[in-house]
């Protein structure tokens, strides 16, 4: 519903129009993909997101009951196990996704920000997982934190990021770093949707005909120019 044509555009309208212009709904949630997207390697991106969903879900349940709950209840241990295995799968899928995109040279065609947002997500995820390991409140967290402190202290990071301080690590693990990871993953997905799936590398032996889309029928299958 609009307040009326010709009226001075409010900040809200400007934001909405800029958002829709940058990311029309059909671009954000397309119902079609290029035909070259027909390999199992494409599954690992969405599997990584799915693992993140399970991590957040199981982590939320663990967070609702507090950090000690999983040590003394069977149901708590169950959700901790779900959380652990989802994390292991998250990294497994993400590393395969990363290697797959590397060997696809997926940064081509102005997609360098897509690659960079993905790799930064990978690195921040390592920090998020690490703060989880040192927040377990068991022997594993005792050992990992006392070993990891030296590397962090050597760079000065330990002055303000104290891995021996459970309260600080727990806050990083359940709030600060998940927010960063979710924000980065969201940005990554939006960038993928904005730029599209990277077309295949041209085959040298096919020359110009090796380019993606060469030989495509004109008309129905052809894409409109970008706005």
């Amino acid at each position: 519903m609009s307040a009326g044509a010709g009226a001075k555009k409010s900040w809200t309208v400007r934001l909405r129009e800029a958002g829709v212009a940058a990311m029309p709904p059909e671009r954000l949630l397309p119902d079609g993909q290029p035909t070259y997207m027909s390999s199992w390697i494409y599954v690992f991106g969405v599997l990584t997101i799915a693992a993140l969903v399970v991590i957040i879900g199981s982590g939320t349940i663990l967070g609702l009951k507090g950090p000690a709950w999983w040590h003394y209840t069977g149901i708590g241990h169950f959700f901790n196990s779900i959380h652990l295995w989802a994390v292991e799968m998250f990294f497994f899928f993400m590393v395969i996704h990363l290697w797959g995109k590397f060997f696809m040279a997926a940064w081509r065609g102005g997609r360098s920000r897509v690659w960079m947002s993905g790799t930064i997500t990978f690195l921040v995820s390592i920090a998020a997982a690490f703060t989880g390991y040192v927040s377990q409140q068991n022997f594993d967290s005792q050992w990992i934190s006392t070993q990891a402190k030296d590397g962090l202290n050597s760079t000065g990071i330990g002055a303000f990021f104290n891995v021996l301080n459970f309260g600080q690590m727990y806050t990083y693990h359940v709030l600060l770093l998940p927010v960063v990871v979710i924000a980065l993953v969201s940005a990554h997905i939006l960038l993928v949707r904005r730029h599209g799936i990277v077309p295949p590398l041209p085959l040298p032996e096919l020359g110009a005909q090796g380019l993606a889309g060469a030989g495509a029928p004109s008309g129905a299958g052809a894409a409109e120019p970008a706005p």
Partner: protein
Amino acid sequence: MKRRRLSNAELNEAASHYDGPYKPYDLVKELFVAICVVATLALLFTVFFSSPDEKPSTVAQWSRDLPVDFLNTAVSELDGTSGTATYGPPYNHNGEGQIVWFIHLQSWLGVSHPINTAQDYVYSPLATVPGDPLLRAAVAEYRESPAKVQATWTNAYLAALVKATVVGNGSVLIPKGNYGPLPTMMNELLTLAQSGAFDGDLLTSDQFYQTDYTKSLLFMADGGELAARAQAQHLLGEQWGMMNETGSYPGQVWLWLYTFWYQIQPFSTSDNADVLVMMIMGVLSVALILVPFIPGVRDIPRWIPIYRYIWRDHYRELRSVAAGPSGDGSGGSGGPPPADPVSPPPAAAAST
């Protein structure tokens, strides 16, 4: 047909738009199915493998299991020779920290978690013992003695601990010698630790609620209890350290490269290994982020053509189009039409 290797600029231009066919695809359904698959896998792993949860060590447990090691550590905290006592920033000024060239990041950031090992690990806990005049006198005698005398006592006591015997109730007997007031102090400290009171003393600060275990963990890390358990669990640095998990569970395997450097020279024996490894990993992390801009690295996908396998169906179709209906290689419009072409989303056509 003349074949020429495309430049990076041409590759970028070619990848900035796509004019080819599309197929129907349901992203939301794909995500839903993926979540179901991952949740099911997590459930199966949970049912069959559960997750590890080794109970944490406590000072009480350590002092009961390894009372001689506990006393060794306590004396080293008292005479300022322990790992924590000589650490430097961020715990004290007794060491300069690790250095790379002229960069002293560890000392530049200063002492943010101050720890006085003699005060925090010996004097303060002993001060909590109520109504013991002998102990009070022993502590006063030690504190008021010259450093040279204190060193004589602590050295003699540490040497005696090598010949110590542990009796049934967990107390430690050492040969007679000139240890000054140390036996009184250390015996009381051991009793305090074995009772469990020491664990609480190390957490005591100015407020009721506690979440900071810095003092406790540093004290226990100076001793042998944590390392002994870690060795049994294959968690020592030379055993690929903290990328492993207790038991036979996969740990932080994504830290393999970080842990790898500690296994080789010069890092495995360097006093500055931590800062050197962190620096290398920092450089490699930045390089990973900047792969699209690093000549040579960004060309690896063309040199190792895994992409030919990934997009094999697409290339097969292109070859068939290029061959044409008569197989004369003239290309053109004779290729097979795409399956179920649909309207392309603007995403795929976006020019960057």
